C-alpha cells in the first residue's frame, strides 16, 4: 500500500497537524519509504498467534475507592492544573470561541 498527497493531507488532518503543500509533497515519499519497508511483516506466518497485549503479564490494579487516595493527583489542585495553561481564565482553560 502506498499513500498519495491527498491521503497524507487526510492523515495530517486526522492528526491535527497543519501542513502546507510543500510539507505534504515532502512527506509523501518519506512515508511511502517507511510503509514499503514495514510491508515485509506481511511475509510472517502469524496463524494462531494472538497480538501481544502486554510484555509482562499482569493484572490491572484498582486503587482504593476513597477521595484523594493519592493527595498528589486528587482534588483541590486547580492552581497546579492551570499553572502551565497558555490561557487560564477565571479558573478554567480558555479556548477560542466554538460555534457550531
Amino acid at each position, binding site marked *: 500500500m502506498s499513500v498519495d498527497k491527498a491521503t497524507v493531507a487526510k492523515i495530517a488532518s486526522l492528526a*491535527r*497537524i497543519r501542513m502546507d503543500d510543500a510539507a505534504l509533497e515532502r*512527506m509523501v515519499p518519506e512515508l511511502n519509504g517507511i510503509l514499503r519497508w*514495514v510491508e515485509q511483516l506481511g511475509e510472517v506466518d502469524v496463524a494462531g498467534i494472538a497480538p501481544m497485549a502486554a*510484555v509482562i503479564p499482569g493484572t490491572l*490494579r484498582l486503587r482504593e475507592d476513597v477521595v484523594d487516595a493519592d493527595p498528589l493527583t486528587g482534588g483541590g489542585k486547580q492552581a497546579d492544573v492551570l499553572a502551565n495553561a497558555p490561557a487560564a481564565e477565571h479558573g478554567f482553560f480558555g479556548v477560542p470561541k466554538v460555534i457550531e
Partner: protein
Amino acid sequence: MTDLTADLTSLGVKEIRDGVARGDFTAREVAEAFNAAVAEAAALNAFIVTTPDHALAAADKVDADRAAGKELGSMAGVPIGMKDLFATYGIQTTAASHILEGFLPRYESTVSSKLWDAGAGMLGKLNLDQFAMGSSNETSYFGNVTSPWRKAGSNAAMSPGGSSGGSSAAVAARIAPAATGTDTGGSIRQPAAFTGICGIKPTYGRCSRWGIVAFASSLDQAGPMARSVEDCAIMLGAMAGFDPKDATSLDMPVPDWEAALNSDLRGKKVGIPREYRMEGTDQAILDSWEQGKAWLKDAGAEIVDVSLPHTKYALPAYYIVAPAEASSNLARYDGVRYGLRELPDGSGLQDMYAATRAAGFGDEVKRRILIGTYVLSAGFYDAYYTQAQKVRALVARDFERAFAECDVILAPTTPTASFPLGSMTDDPLTMYLNDVFAVPASLAGLPAMSVPATLNPDGLPLGLQIVGRPFDEQGVLNAGLAIEQRAGFTARPEKWW
C-alpha cells in the same frame, strides 16, 4: 580547573559516594567541581538547562546529614544529569521540543524523586532527541548534542547516539558521573555504545514511568547510564521499585544488585543468536563480538548457539507499534492545558490545534505521528497494527525459547560505531536501522545492557550488548561485569571543548 576539580570529575558513582561517606572530600566539593565542568562544556550542548543550585543544595544536605551522623543514601553526594524527559518540579521539562518549551512541572517524576531521596543532586536537564524519537540526537529543538569523541585525525562533530545523547555525551565527557536515560527502542544502549560508557534498560516495569514524558508506553523504560557496571547497578537500585501511580509498574521487590555483583560465570550459558550476523555490520563490530565470546568463556561461561528467527521483523514491527502509541500519547499537546499555543488571527479551536502542533513538533515527530495515525486508521488497523502486535508476540516467543537453552544472550549493541552529525539525515530509514540489534529486547520487555568493549580502527568506542530473562537484571549485570573486567576499557575522549 584545579587538580582537585579534575580529580573529582574523573570519579564515578561509587567512588564519589564512598569518598563522601569516608570524608575524603565533601559532597559540596564534588558538586562544585561538576558544576564547573558543566559550565565549561557548553560546546557539547549536552544540557538544555543547568541546575547548579539543585546540585549544591542536595550536596549540602548530604554533608549536613553526614555531620549529624545520619545514615546516607545509596547515591549520597552524587550529582547526576537528568534526561529532559523526566518531569522535575519547577524546572523546565521539554522533551527537547518547542511545544513544551517553558513547561514547569508542578510534580516530580517517581524516578527523579527516588534519586533525590537516595541523596543524588541534579546538575541539569540533559538534551535528547525530540520526544526521544531519534538515534543521533539531531532532532532536538535545542540543537544537536556533539559527542566528546572524535575520529582519529578528524575534527568532524560526531553523534553521541540517541535518544539519550545528552546523557551519553555528559557521562563520557566527565561532566557528570552518571545520568538517567530512557530506552524505547535502544535509546540507552545505542548512545552508551557510541560513547564508550555503560547503560542498562531494566525489565519493562522495573522503573516507574510516572512523570516521564510518554513516547510509546508499552516500550518506554528508564535506566541508568554511567561509566562502570557497578555504578549502573547502584543507580538502577535507586531508580527501580513499585509505584502504584504507574499501572504497569512491577509489584516485586528490588534486589540488591550492587551487593550481588559477581563476574564468575561458571555454570552459566551464553547464547549467540545466529540471526544477528547481518549484512552491513562493520567488521570491527563482528570482531568485538568474537572477543566478547572469548571473554565470557574465560569467565567460565559456556557459549551456545541460539536462534531468534524473527529478528529481521522486529524493527519494522517496532516502527508500527511505537509510532502508533506515539500518535495517541502525543494527542495531549493541544495548546489548551500546557505548552505552546498558536492562535492565528480569527481561528477557531480546530485551527488552533493544527497550528499549535505544526509549530510545536519537529519533522521526525510529525513523521511518526502521521505513520501512527495511518496504521491505526479505519481500514488499515488490522493489516498494520494487529499484524505488528502478532509479530511482536513472535519476537518475544523467540526469546522465551532461546532462554530455555541459555541464561543470557550476547550480541553487538549497534551495527556501526558513531557517525558524523548530518551524515545520516537524508533518509529516515537508514537512521532507524541503527537500532536493529537493540529493538528486539525492547519489544520483548527484557533487561538489556551495553558495555564498552574496545575502540574501532578510527578510535571510536564499540559496545557489546547483553540481554537477559525477564527480571534477571542481575544476570545481565554479572555478564557485563565479566566483560568489563576483561575488556579493560580505559579510553576516554581527549578534551577539545
